[in-house]
């Protein structure tokens, strides 16, 4: 008996390092006397919020701090759930794998860059969780990563939000047709081609899935001697999409192509669909709501390309009023710093309530990423991801002052040195500035922009 116990104890001790490595660092904090914008449970004045071991342990008045717990005085400040961006390309070494219009096997997880200063700058805008996606060059792109902004680590795997559902990028319209049709002279060159490419890939995946399902069924039978079907990483991922285990995040703009992707998904029994950008989503809001798709949109970006010329800043409000779960995203390392401001524009464009506006950057993107049981609102049991603001976050005069991820303060305006880089390139000339393009260009184009230009110049 004793030896059995001993063996168990040894086994447990051996297991500990493994378990610890997989756990993110968590912290304790008591945020005192703030105005809590819970998003799901209304506004609570002069209320404390206690985080223990990275989770919200209590919300109420006169909470006592456990031994050694960090105490944050939020008197006169606004406390809201950490902001969630459902569409970003920060913290990536590469964005577009443009070698084929169909690349579901590509994983952004393999290109994560925990050193990206954009992570810290997003934290300084109250953001705690993002989905960082493959670009929009391919009709079917790569798999995205849902990550927490645990800035300070050099280990990419520490950023990944454990247990978040998988997501994949699809893209319609000008980008895939420009890259592959105009650029490589292959299908798709038109929106007809985009539909065909997606439909073909899904049909192939359906056949592949059928073969595997049959094999797995046969395998159970006694005396079965057949060989397994060929394993195909590309089709395996799409089969998971068909099984409902991977959510499609589909870059789209025009109403016609939105209806197209709804129809394709319906034909293949795919239900998990989030429309990304969907600038003309408002034109087919009843259809989107009927399908049960969700939409992650810009606040007011438009006219940067032809397919967004007939869009409107009222998009988020129209979608919301038509019953579509809507979020506002950044798609940009600058805009991600001001998602609270982007959300505030819906007070003007369409007259959403303050609660509805805040939901656009918290609980709604959490729903779209399938992580709303963990993040997106201030509720006991949820993750200790909190953003603290001077002034109401929907006021233009607000300033984010502190951001906590899993109860750990990752941004503190009071304690914010000039240079927050983790790593410095020894080759870098110190005084060499890098001014970005004059107009905010959304992307999805990302690193591909230069290549696009080249394609056109060489044509």
């Amino acid at each position, binding site marked *: 008996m004793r030896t059995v116990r001993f063996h168990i104890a040894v086994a447990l001790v051996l297991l500990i390092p493994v378990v610890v490595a997989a756990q993110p660092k968590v912290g304790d904090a008591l945020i005192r006397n703030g105005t809590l914008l819970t998003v799901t449970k209304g506004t609570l004045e002069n209320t404390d919020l206690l985080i223990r071991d990275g989770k919200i342990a209590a919300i109420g008045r006169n909470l006592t701090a456990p031994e050694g717990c960090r105490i944050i005085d939020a008197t006169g400040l606004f406390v809201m759930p950490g902001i969630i961006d459902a569409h970003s390309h920060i913290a990536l070494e590469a964005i577009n794998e443009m070698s084929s219009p169909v690349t579901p096997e590509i994983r952004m997880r393999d290109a994560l860059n925990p050193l990206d*200063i954009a992570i*810290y*700058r997003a934290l*300084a805008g109250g953001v705690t969780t993002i989905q960082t996606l493959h670009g929009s060059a391919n009709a079917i792109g790569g798999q995205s990563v849902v990550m927490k902004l645990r800035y300070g680590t050099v280990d990419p795997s520490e950023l990944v939000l454990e247990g978040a559902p998988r997501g994949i990028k699809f893209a319609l319209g000008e980008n895939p047709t420009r890259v592959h049709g105009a650029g490589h002279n292959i299908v798709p060159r038109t929106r007809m081609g985009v539909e065909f490419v997606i439909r073909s890939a899904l049909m192939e995946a359906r056949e592949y899935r059928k073969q595997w399902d049959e094999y797995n069924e046969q395998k159970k039978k006694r005396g079965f001697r057949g060989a397994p079907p060929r394993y195909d990483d590309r089709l395996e991922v799409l089969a998971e999409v068909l099984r409902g285990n991977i959510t499609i995040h589909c870059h789209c703009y025009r109403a016609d192509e939105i209806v197209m992707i709804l129809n394709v998904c319906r034909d293949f029994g795919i239900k998990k669909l989030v429309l990304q950008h969907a600038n003309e989503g*408002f*034109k087919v*809001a*009843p*259809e989107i709501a*009927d399908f049960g798709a969700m939409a992650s949109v810009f606040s*007011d*970006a*438009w*006219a*940067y*390309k*032809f397919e967004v*010329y*007939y*869009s*409107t*800043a*009222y998009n988020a*409000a*129209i979608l919301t*009023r038509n019953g579509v779960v809507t979020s506002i995203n950044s798609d940009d390392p*600058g805009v991600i*710093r*001001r998602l609270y*401001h982007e959300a*505030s*524009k819906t*007070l*003007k*464009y*369409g007259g959403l309530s303050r609660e509805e506006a805040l939901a656009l950057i918290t609980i709604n993107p959490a729903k779209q990423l399938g992580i709303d049981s963990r993040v997106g609102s201030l509720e006991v049991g949820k993750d200790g991801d909190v953003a603290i603001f001077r*002034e109401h976050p*929907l006021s*233009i*005069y*607000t*300033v984010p002052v502190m951001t906590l991820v899993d109860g750990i303060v990752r941004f503190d305006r009071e304690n*914010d040195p*000039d*240079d*927050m*880089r983790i790593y*410095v390139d020894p080759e870098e000339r110190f*005084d*060499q*500035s*890098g*001014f*970005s*393009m*004059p*107009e905010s*260009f959304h992307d999805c184009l990302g*690193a591909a*922009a230069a290549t696009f230009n080249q394609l056109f110049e060489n044509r």
Partner: protein
Amino acid sequence: MSNRLALLVTALLWLSATMGVAQVPKGSYGPVALVGATAYTVTQDTIENCTVVLRDGKIEAIGANVSVPGDARVIDCKGRRVYPGFIDGGTRLGLSEIGSDPRTHDYNEVGNIVPQMRALTAVNPNSALIPVTRVNGVTTVLSAPTGGLFSGTAALINLYGYTPEQMYAGFEGVVLNFPSTSRGGSNDKRKSEEIAKAATKAMKKLDDVWQKAVEYDKLDSALGESKPDYYPELIALQPVLRGTMPLIVEVDDAGDILRALEWVREKEIRKVIFAGVREGWRVADKIAEAGIPVITGKVLTLPGRAYDRYDRSYANPAIMNKAGVTVALRTNEANNVRNLPYNAGVAAAYGLGKEEALRAITIVPAQIFGVADKLGSLEAGKDATLFVCDGDPLEPATNILHLFIKGWDVPLVSRQTLLYDEFLHREPGLQKP
């Protein structure tokens, strides 16, 4: 058959003529009295329970004790606020319609030295972007060419009118892209040495052109009636040399700013405006010392360097202002110039203060452009270019309720509001009967 064909052709012509046109209701003109508002004059005290009388395109009277003329249309503004129209100190509005489509770009002419290219000749009064902009309280913008060394001549325009002449707001300035030693964004893969070499070459070119312009001007003055040979680019620089037109110097990098200060001092250029100035905060004292006014922005952007504190771009206007620099703001955009008030609001939050932020998009740019006798504040005799709103206009929650440009009551309708009206509750909805 031919009748049908004619009908078809007519229909097609009508379609092509109406496509792309900002289909918004007409403005109206006539005496108006705004009664009972709180007037934020910018240059004078704020006036409670104020009456503002607009007539013949001007503010005829403003004050708490002004009587309402019998012929004026009265707009009840109790609980409302009145502000002078916002001025964006640098945009491509009217010169660019669709960001990725070069066919709609009229801001970057071929050539390195093209100061004679005038923005005013290419401004599209019917751009769909214009109504979208003005419904947020922006009434006046500098529309500027970009690219090359001397990009062209920028023009200040009011956002109402059907010809460039109707829109012109009384200012033009030559744009100089000061040779840059900084990287042109993350897609600029040049080596540091290549960038430095290109900057040195551009600097030499700039000095050469300037020397030619000086000589040409001397020759021109000496020759009198018998003109020298026709050099349009040198002629376009003459007003700058003579100090009758400002030179707008686009410059961002701190080192470039110092070089530009040295250059304009050395060339004894009398009227200079610095534009962009993203790293003004690094050398604010030097800019203040030179007494050169700055149009900076956009504010809502990233710092230029990875090692910079995250909020430098937000705090840049405040840091320069505190050092004594005259600071106006710009969006440097075409399609979202409507966000000018939010650029000002964020600058306010990061140290500029509400009052100074408001000045930076009203009276300060008006003064920089030499049009403060007409624009930038609510004063009797100035242009009736103003708006009525239901709160602080730098706050996104605030709605603009009435807007006047030179006395024209401009309907607050844009393609974006029309789409909202059409699609909020679309008919037919999901089912088509």
